[in-house]
């Protein structure tokens, strides 16, 4: 009945690697944010899985805090994307090579 730990860890590794791939290849700032979210949520999967593995709720509490920090990060990230678009008429992160404003 119980799913073995390896499956959770493999799922988490897959999600994390998809996030790494997104960060390495995407140029749209919004997709960047989504990829960073994928990596954070891979860490969350690990935290919850190990919380179950040890029979201790500290991991689940940690994942709640990670979600709150991810929300804060996205709030600031969206603000930065707005400013990026306002200054460069584009959300392509490779175009914003100057910091002269």
């Amino acid at each position, binding site marked *: 009945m119980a799913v073995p730990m390896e499956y959770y860890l493999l799922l988490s590794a897959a999600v994390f*690697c998809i996030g790494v791939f997104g960060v*390495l290849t995407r140029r749209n700032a919004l997709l960047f944010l989504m990829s960073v979210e994928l990596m954070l949520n891979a860490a969350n999967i690990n935290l919850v899985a190990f919380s179950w593995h040890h029979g201790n709720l500290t991991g689940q509490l940690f994942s709640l805090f990670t979600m709150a920090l991810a929300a804060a990060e996205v709030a600031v990230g969206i*603000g930065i994307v707005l400013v990026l678009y306002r200054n460069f008429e584009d959300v392509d992160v490779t175009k914003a090579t100057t910091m002269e404003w």
Partner: protein
Amino acid sequence: MTTSPELYRGSKAAGLAAVALFAVLAAVFVGAGFSGGAGFPADVSITASIGYLLFDFPSYASVGGEGFLAAFEIIDVVLVAALVGAVMLARREGGDPLSVEGGEE
């Protein structure tokens, strides 16, 4: 001219790097040899225990854990600071913040 979504735009090396990272991680995880987990008791409320731990009442929680009241409050401050920072970043400099005509300044 925002970029529209495209199926793939990137180097093969990035994809290979991601797949190689997954291969290394998978090899480590499969080879680690986890024994059966402790799990949680079936007849207790996990959600209620999380709530008690979040407000620093570990003795009321039916599943083990630590109290996290300080972290909870600090995260609260961080969230408010991030939201205020986002609003400050997104606000147009100079102009009336309530004007709706839009356009670049």
